[in-house]
């Protein structure tokens, strides 16, 4: 359980990035934090593993206050997947890369080996075990970064803009993977501005704008709330755009999923 209590954060440069943010994330939730570049999303999630400490207010991860805990300690429970995998990769083999965090956390010998094998398997990287991560394609490097974070099985997984530069199929695979993680009981927090991706996942959606939370609720409701979306400079998902143009036919307006759209339209067309 992550509790953010009225957090303010100002960078050393003087920029006030968070202006009174309060939020509770329950175990096992799947959350998307959305907003324009500069809204404060990345600043907020960096508070979850202690990379940033609040200027005012506090953040509790479990029962631990992030102000008095080191990043290394918090990282054991909160795994962070950064946007660019090349900001992490430095080892000679994929195996070592995946083992890096495990070693830092004190895993040794057989347990270490088992965890590495498990993580490689999970991300379909077993054949690249002894390969240099720098020889892999962009998509494969992303999977290595993901494997290296999942290796120590953190309870919470935070992903910062995981869909950037990915094609449609890669996003599909990622989406299903995230759902799988969530089904296994992990709390998943995804920061993104990719509205279509979020619409297909339908998680709890939090909209941020200028350092504040402007909306927090079920995906369907938040992503069809035009006023809030405009405030956060987010575009309506395509499916919602379509239904916005059909309101005078008595069709619901909170539709963001393609298959739900199909059901509704099939029914209406079938009634003719």
């Amino acid at each position, binding site marked *: 359980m992550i509790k953010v209590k009225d957090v303010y954060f100002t960078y050393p440069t003087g920029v006030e990035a968070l202006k009174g943010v309060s939020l509770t994330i329950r175990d096992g939730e799947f959350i998307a934090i959305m907003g324009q570049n500069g809204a404060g999303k990345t600043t907020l999630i960096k508070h979850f593993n202690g*990379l940033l400490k609040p200027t005012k207010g506090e953040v509790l991860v479990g029962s631990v206050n992030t102000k008095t805990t080191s*990043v*290394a300690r918090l990282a054991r429970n909160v795994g962070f997947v950064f946007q660019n995998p090349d900001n992490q990769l*430095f080892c000679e083999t994929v195996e070592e890369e995946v083992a890096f965090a495990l070693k*830092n956390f004190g895993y040794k010998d057989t347990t270490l080996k088992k965890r590495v094998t498990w993580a490689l398997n999970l991300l379909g990287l077993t054949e690249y075990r002894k390969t240099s991560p720098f020889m892999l394609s962009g998509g494969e490097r992303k999977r290595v970064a993901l494997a290296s974070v999942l290796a120590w099985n953190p309870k919470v997984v935070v992903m910062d803009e995981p869909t950037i530069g990915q094609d449609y199929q890669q996003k599909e695979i990622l989406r299903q993977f995230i759902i799988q993680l969530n089904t296994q009981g992990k709390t998943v927090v995804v920061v993104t501005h990719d509205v279509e991706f979020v619409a297909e996942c339908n998680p709890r959606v939090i909209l941020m704008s200028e350092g504040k939370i402007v909306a927090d609720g079920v995906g369907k409701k938040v992503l069809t709330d035009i006023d809030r979306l405009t405030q956060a400079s987010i575009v309506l998902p395509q499916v919602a755009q379509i239904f916005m143009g059909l309101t005078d036919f008595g069709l619901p307006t909170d539709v963001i999923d393609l298959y739900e759209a199909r059901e509704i339209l099939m029914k209406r067309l079938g009634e003719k």
Partner: protein
Amino acid sequence: MSVFDGLKFRRVTSPIHMLDPRIKFLYVCSIFVVAILFWELLPLIILFLMQIPFVLLARVQKEWVRSLRGAAFLAVIIFSTNLFFRFMYTGYPTLQDIEYASAMTLRFVVLVESFSVFFLTTSPDHLGLALEQSHVPYEFCFAFTTAVRFVPVLADEAQTIMDAQKARGLELEKGNFLKRIRNYIPILIPLIISAIRRSLELAEAMESRAWGAIEKRTNLYVLKMRKADYLLILASILILIIGVYIRYYVPTPSFSDLLKL
């Protein structure tokens, strides 16, 4: 980082900022040459004080003071080393020894603060332009401005890499001296590789903008000498002449002499 803060360019408009960087550099060099001529404290103090009106005119007081603070550490080392080597033979420091050590330290300080004023009031593109017009080969000028352009980018990236590795349990402060150095490998390698990738992308972009099309590149901007620049040249030459004259023809009192009065 405070020493570097003293050298970073501040975007303010002031008459000093508008001066031709080549002339400013000439001025700083003449200050430097005169500073080296003297062993006595008095002329060095005068040289030091002469910079202050420039600093105030350029409105860079805060940063300038910060650069002095940064230089303070080295200044202390220079003072103590010089003092030590002087009284090492006699056993105890005399007033002359103290004056000598202070003069050496002040020489260093005059050097630092005059260059600090130079860098604080000269934008990197102004500097790059000065290099170009001084007929430095364009490749070097380009390398210089590109390096300056990317310093903040690399600094940000280094921070991101540190965050990413800390989030994987890396504790930079942990362990003995050797371990602490090894802790930086997960930060240096991604940084270096990213720099290499970046250079490749930059090269592609350069080629795509007709890099190397013709030998003689033209330039959007040009440095033109103005009245103030000519005045500064005059001032620099005067300082040199006066400095040399005083050094060789006017007996300069040392502090110990002044104290006897």
